[in-house]
């Protein structure tokens, strides 16, 4: 399985913090979004991470990976 996590405004927009997907359906970060976001287009400026490292839409995703999507960060 692939775990897909959403944070901040994306979590609220999608109404969920986490979705689990069969790894056979997901090969890249972009596919993880398509499968997990229920048809919502990827909002501009969305950041992605695979296993808690920043990633790109074409970053490969494998069984057991954690993929995260979130808006620009605003700490400090």
């Amino acid at each position, binding site marked *: 399985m692939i775990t897909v996590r959403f944070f*901040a405004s994306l979590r609220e927009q999608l109404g969920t913090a986490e979705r689990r997907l069969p790894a056979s359906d997901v090969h890249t970060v972009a596919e993880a979004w398509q499968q997990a976001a229920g048809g919502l287009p990827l909002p501009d400026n969305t950041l992605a991470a695979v296993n808690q490292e920043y990633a790109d839409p074409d970053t490969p995703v494998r069984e057991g990976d954690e993929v995260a999507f*979130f808006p620009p960060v*605003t*700490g*400090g």
Partner: protein
Amino acid sequence: MDNPALFDRPFDPWPLVAAWERALPGGAGRHGASAVFTGTMRDFNEGDDVARMTLEHYPGMTENYLRRIMDEARERWPVQSCYIAHRVGEIRPGETIMLAAVWSAHRREAFEACRYLVEELKHRAPFWKKETLADGTARWVTRNTPG
């Protein structure tokens, strides 16, 4: 060592700075400069009065990136020690949001490395602010203010 600290309740940065300085590797006398930055929650933003704020983070990734940013500062400048602390959860105006501190032999690397810690944290560490205005409406903060 040099682990970042995340606090889910108010913290006073100054005793932390003093405690960290007492425990510096090599003991007293090794550093000639320290640079300290603290960020405090304002009661206004984008022209509106702000009553409180929630700081969300990505447990694990946040700590990893703070650690990495400190490692990068140590690689780029000859610093003796770095420290970062940051709030998470519910926060109110006047409370400290973050602390970044650097100790080094000379002032230039202390100032530059401390600035690096702050700017890199703001651009890379996964934290998100949601503010509640005085009239009760809530909104996500969508961008950093220019440094």
